[in-house]
Each structure stands twice: as structure tokens, then as C-alpha cells.
């Protein structure tokens, strides 16, 4: 049974596709979350995992349940959105921000940074720590946005399992850090609680790259491993928001396997640190 749900939909491939489309529409109409522009392959896989966990035999059954019970939708949202990220994931990215982007960020009297699709907050805290180390955090506000309220709640708490901290520390070190990660959290009862002094500079809020618009002018957007889950059309919408939000000469960081190549905004940005996928918004002609 499990093998059939998790594995091949031998007889039900076509049915699954139809049910998937109906489910995504139902979610849009009843909860106003728009997954219609998500890349299908990962969506299918995440939904199969949700079926097993939520003990539903089909997507139709899941749809029936979630239309009647918002708690079921909240649980499904965790499957559809949450990525576990690490602090300072891809240390080379943060090293490049530190060495090549920070010197230019210093020229602004105050900074606004947007972490789009922040999930449970690891990247937002990483940037806050980096900017603290570089002496910029005092004049910085970080907007960390996501569509999942449960993720945002966890992110705002700044509490992570102590078992993950060793990996965070290794990554932090690789980012060219000149302080110790332990300066920024206190450990208790198997958890690491990150400092209020970091949280004071981060605003966690609900924002959808699929349906919402721009809310501030920022100097840096960091949006990594979010665009790969989007179709090209939705990628374009998100990149349009980033283009709108960034000041002229502002910076955009995306995931190591993401690209602007196929986007209609490709010309709006120039490579800045090519190997780390950091781009700079071109100044208007």
C-alpha cells in the first residue's frame, strides 16, 4: 500500500494529474494560496508525501477534507512550502556577499534587505549575523517573507535544534566569519536560541511572490532555492517584483542552480559574482 502511494501510480497517472489540477484550483478558491504556477514535478512528489502523512487515499479525498477543515490545509501547506535550509548554506555565497557586496552596501546610509521565501528563517539570521560582523546591522532592516504562517512563526522564534548547530558553525566559518557563531545564540534544553539583538532587525511577514506586490525599496534581495519550484511564468513574476523592489545598482542573490537566462528580466541584471549567482540591477539608461 505504502509502496503504491509513494512509488508508481501505475494505473492512476492520468487520474492523479486531473485531481492535482482540481486540488490546486480548490486551494486557490478557498484559501487564496496560488500554487498554479508551481513546477509540477516537485509539486507531485510533495503531494504524494502529503497523501501518506495525512492518510488520504487520493487527492480527491484530500481535497474533500481540506475544504471542510482549515487545519488539514495548514498541515498540507507544510508539505507544499517548507524547505529545510541551513544557516550559511553554500558558504561561498556568503563569502562573496561579505567580500564583494558588503563594501558597496557600506555606501548607503541605511540598508533594507529582503529575504524572499525565508521558510524557517535560517537565511535571514545568517544575513543578520554577517551584517553584524561587518558593522552594518545597526542601520539595517531585514524583511523576511514567506507564505507559510507556521514557518514564519518558527522563524520569528529563532529557535533551532541544537543538533543542527555544528553544521551551521562549519558553514559560518566557511563564510569568512570573524566571530564565533556561539556569540549569537544561547543553548538550552537541546535548543539554540538566537539573540533578540538580531531579531530586532528582522521583520518576518506574510508575502506571496505569486499574488502580492512590492512593499519597500531594498538594496539586496536574497531568494535562493525558491525559483526552482516555480514555472517560468511565475519565476518571471517574482523577478519582476525583485526588479521593482531593488534600488538602481541593488543586488540580487539566487540559488546556485537557478538562472535568469530564460527570464524576460535577464537584461535588467548584470552578473556581479557569477559563480555565486549574485547579480546587480543595471542602472536605468
Amino acid at each position, binding site marked *: 500500500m505504502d509502496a503504491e502511494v509513494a512509488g508508481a501510480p*501505475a494505473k492512476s497517472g492520468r487520474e492523479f494529474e486531473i485531481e492535482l489540477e482540481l486540488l490546486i484550483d480548490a486551494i486557490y478558491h478557498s484559501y487564496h494560496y496560488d500554487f498554479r504556477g508551481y513546477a509540477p*514535478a516537485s509539486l507531485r512528489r*510533495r503531494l504524494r508525501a502529503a497523501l501518506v502523512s495525512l492518510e488520504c487515499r487520493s487527492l480527491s479525498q484530500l481535497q474533500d477534507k481540506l475544504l471542510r477543515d482549515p487545519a488539514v490545509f495548514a498541515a498540507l501547506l507544510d508539505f507544499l512550502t517548507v524547505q*529545510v535550509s541551513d544557516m550559511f548554506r553554500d558558504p561561498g555565497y556568503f563569502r562573496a556577499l561579505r567580500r564583494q557586496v558588503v563594501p558597496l552596501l557600506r555606501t548607503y546610509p541605511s540598508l533594507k534587505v529582503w529575504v524572499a521565501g525565508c521558510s524557517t528563517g535560517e537565511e535571514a539570521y545568517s544575513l543578520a549575523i554577517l551584517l553584524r560582523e561587518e558593522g552594518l546591522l545597526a542601520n539595517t532592516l531585514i524583511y523576511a517573507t514567506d507564505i507559510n504562517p507556521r514557518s514564519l512563526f518558527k522563524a520569528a522564534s529563532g529557535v533551532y535544534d541544537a543538533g543542527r548547530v555544528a553544521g551551521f558553525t562549519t558553514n559560518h566559518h566557511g563564510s569568512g566569519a570573524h566571530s564565533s557563531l556561539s556569540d549569537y545564540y544561547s543553548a538550552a534544553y537541546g535548543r539554540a536560541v538566537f539573540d533578540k539583538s538580531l531579531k530586532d532587525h528582522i521583520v518576518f511577514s506574510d508575502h506571496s511572490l505569486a499574488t502580492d506586490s512590492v512593499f519597500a525599496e531594498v538594496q539586496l534581495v536574497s531568494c535562493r532555492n525558491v525559483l526552482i519550484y516555480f514555472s517560468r511564468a511565475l519565476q518571471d513574476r517574482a523577478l519582476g517584483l525583485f526588479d521593482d523592489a531593488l534600488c538602481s545598482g541593488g543586488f540580487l542573490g539566487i540559488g546556485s*542552480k537557478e538562472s535568469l537566462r530564460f527570464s524576460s528580466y535577464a537584461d535588467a541584471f548584470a552578473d556581479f559574482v557569477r559563480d555565486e549567482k549574485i547579480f546587480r540591477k543595471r542602472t536605468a539608461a
Partner: protein
Amino acid sequence: MIAPAVLGDRVDAVVIGASAGGVAALSMLLPALPLNSRASIFIVLHLPRNKPSVLADIFSPKCVLPVREAEDKESVACGTVYFAPSDYHLLLDQGPQLALSADDPVHHSRPSIDVLFESAAEVYRDRLLGIILTGANEDGAAGLAAVHDSGGITVVQRPETAPSPQMALSALKLRPVDLVLSLDRIAALLGTLGATGVPFQ
């Protein structure tokens, strides 16, 4: 089973999964792929994370077919070998098109063989050949089962010839497998891609 088998145009794609000992195994298999193969080849090889994958560079000179690291939303080209990049899952999507994901590891693995095989089975159905090679964990067993359940051809390296037999043994436990072969026989089978003759099954 059925031998000698000629793949010819029986499949549009081949998925290969390997872990410990996989580089040596692939070094025997990939040079056997013939120039006239129209099938696309997708490979997950478990490697340490946080290191850029150099697999495409290693295998390119050994193959007559083009060898590339898979890119997100790239259209699949015929007769091309794609490696999953380090620390990302590789999936197939309708089109066929490649897709990457940074979702949780499966069987402690990212890229995961199950993720590749299951998504490829949905896209290619019975026009798929799945091959499980040497490896020391269970990743790939559920994936090969998915290939079997969609009517694809399944091949497992003979466990006693694998440096790490656990992956092959796990796959053999889950479903009946069409062919259990040593590496040189798998190489010979791949050599019949695009060949004319009595087609497989």
C-alpha cells in the same frame, strides 16, 4: 532471462543509480553507449555534499555521447547523458524537461535515486530502462519498483559482483527484476541502444 537482448528503440530514456563504487562502475558502462543511441541517460551518483560535481568533466572524454550536468527546466535532448548536480534532486517533468529540487534528502541522499526514478517513471512510463548498480544503502529500491510498475525494463547489477551489494539486494527484494547482470553484460546491453535487430521482449 532473455538473452541476448537488443534494446534498439525499445526505450526513450535510461535512468542509472549508484553509490559507493559507482565511479568505477560507470567508467565501464558509459563508454559502451553507442553514438546512434537516441535514448537520453539520467544518472544519480551519491557523492559528498558541498562539493561542486565534476562528474560531467570526468566522463565527457570517455563517452561518444555528450555528457552534461543537469540544469533546471532544461529540455531533454536525445542521446545525451545528464548527471544530477551535487546537493540537488534531479527530477523529470512532462516535456520532457529536467527539474531540480532542494527538498529534504531521501535515504540521507540528495540527489536521491528514488526521486529520479519515480519521476522518470511517471514521464516515460514503459519506455524507460532503470539500472541499479553498486551502493551501500537502500536508495533506488522504491524507484526501481516504480519503473517496474509503469512497465519499464529493470536491471540490477549482480550483487556478488558489486563492491557494495546492499543497493542491488534492496532493489531485488522489492520487485521482480527483468535482468540481473554483471557490469560487462550491462555494458553490452547499453551497447544495443539504437541497434537494429530483435527488439527486447
